[in-house]
């Protein structure tokens, strides 16, 4: 775990990763998407006994292997060579998505192109521009017990948290939590609640950067990133 004193100076992506890491329970099974979500595992202590799963069939992903020890037979879902922790196991792709869709995955953390006030995530295509494909994202959002979207609050100056997605959505399931460098938001029946603000960020600054309407109840605390898990 990293030791940081002034969180307002922290890299925005690290703020997100660190805040997300506080949501992870001991001994749970977690799938981290590529990009910012991958950074989350850096903030966890191995003693927690969390197992990280990747779509390609590893239960128990580890960090990079020692220098000179990488092998192409062992990669994460991004195709990056990784190691495996003691107690890791290998499953085929049908089994891997069986875990995901069958409710065995406690948490998935995914990046997003957009999330809207209803909690719908869009992260698999930009019509007419770029079509990466959904990969495992549709199954992850539909099947995981808890879904957290971890992403930068804006892209090219535009809010990624919108009243209603105009990009094709990934699932009809409402995500559970949205974590950006500006705040922590939760979509509920009555709309999108702002639960925490980012380090040194005001409620007004979050709303100004967000096209979706944020519901604020009482005083909104700042993320407590000094908390250890």
């Amino acid at each position, binding site marked *: 775990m990293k030791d940081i004193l002034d969180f307002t100076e922290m890299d925005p992506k690290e703020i997100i990763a660190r805040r997300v890491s506080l949501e992870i329970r001991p001994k749970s099974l977690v799938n981290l998407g590529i990009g910012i979500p991958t950074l989350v595992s850096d903030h966890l202590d191995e003693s927690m006994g969390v197992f990280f799963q990747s779509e390609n069939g590893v239960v128990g992903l580890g960090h990079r292997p020692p220098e000179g020890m990488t092998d192409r037979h062992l990669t994460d879902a991004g195709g990056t060579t990784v190691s495996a922790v003691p107690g890791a196991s290998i499953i085929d792709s049908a089994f891997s998505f069986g875990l995901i869709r069958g409710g065995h995955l406690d948490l998935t953390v995914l990046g997003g192109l957009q999330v809207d006030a209803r909690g719908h995530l869009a992260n698999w295509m930009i019509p007419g521009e770029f079509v990466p*494909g959904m990969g495992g994202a549709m199954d992850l959002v539909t099947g995981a017990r808890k879904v957290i979207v971890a992403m930068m609050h804006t892209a090219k100056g535009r809010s990624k948290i919108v009243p209603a997605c105009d990009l094709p959505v990934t699932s009809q399931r409402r995500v559970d939590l949205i974590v950006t460098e500006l705040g922590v938001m939760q979509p509920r029946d009555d709309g999108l609640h702002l639960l925490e603000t980012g380090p040194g960020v005001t409620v007004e600054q979050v709303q100004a950067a967000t096209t979706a309407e944020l519901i604020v109840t009482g005083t909104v605390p700042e993320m407590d990133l000094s908390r250890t898990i």
Partner: protein
Amino acid sequence: MQLAISIEEAVEMIPDGARVMLSGFMGVGTPDTLVRALAASGKKDLTMIVNDAARPHTGVGPLVRARCVRKFIGSHIGLNPDVQDQMREGSLEVELVPQGTFVERVRAAGVGLGGVLTPTGLGTRIAEGKQTVEVEGRTYLLEPPLRADFALIAARTCDYVGNLSYMLSATNFNPIMALAGDVVIAEPEEIVPVGVIPPDAVKTPGIIVDHVIKRAS
């Protein structure tokens, strides 16, 4: 025909226009020698059923670059610019399938089930025009089996009767696709005597493997 065949015999066997299932995840667990030989042979109009488009030089990449592929059925194409280009110019048709649905559709074909009932994709663009089925009060998307003329797979170890074992994340789609091709051709990294792979470690029984790429002598 022989279990052990040469790479040339394998390439010969696959006609233009064939539906070909290819294993691997981002090129890991893909039979690379077979892919390169097929690409070099100039096959045309293949339908490739493969999880992802990998990158231009890995996985199905060489076949796309050599313009052997008319249709791609898989879940992810974001890291292969060739696919994006050929899709835009209209020479490559792409059918995107969520990965969990993709592997279950392949499995359904392989194990004789009529289709897949999944919650994945409901309420999204990929559900458009598809049948839904209600079971015990819940709605599921009905997705048909996905079968191929050929399944090209990669194994870590093969024994003399074609039993296969895989290694780490190179396992991925291999054991499932081995069930779903009319002709199954495996490219192993090593070939060992019967008994070297213990019965409990065999992931694909040799009896369902039609051909194995032989070693260069």
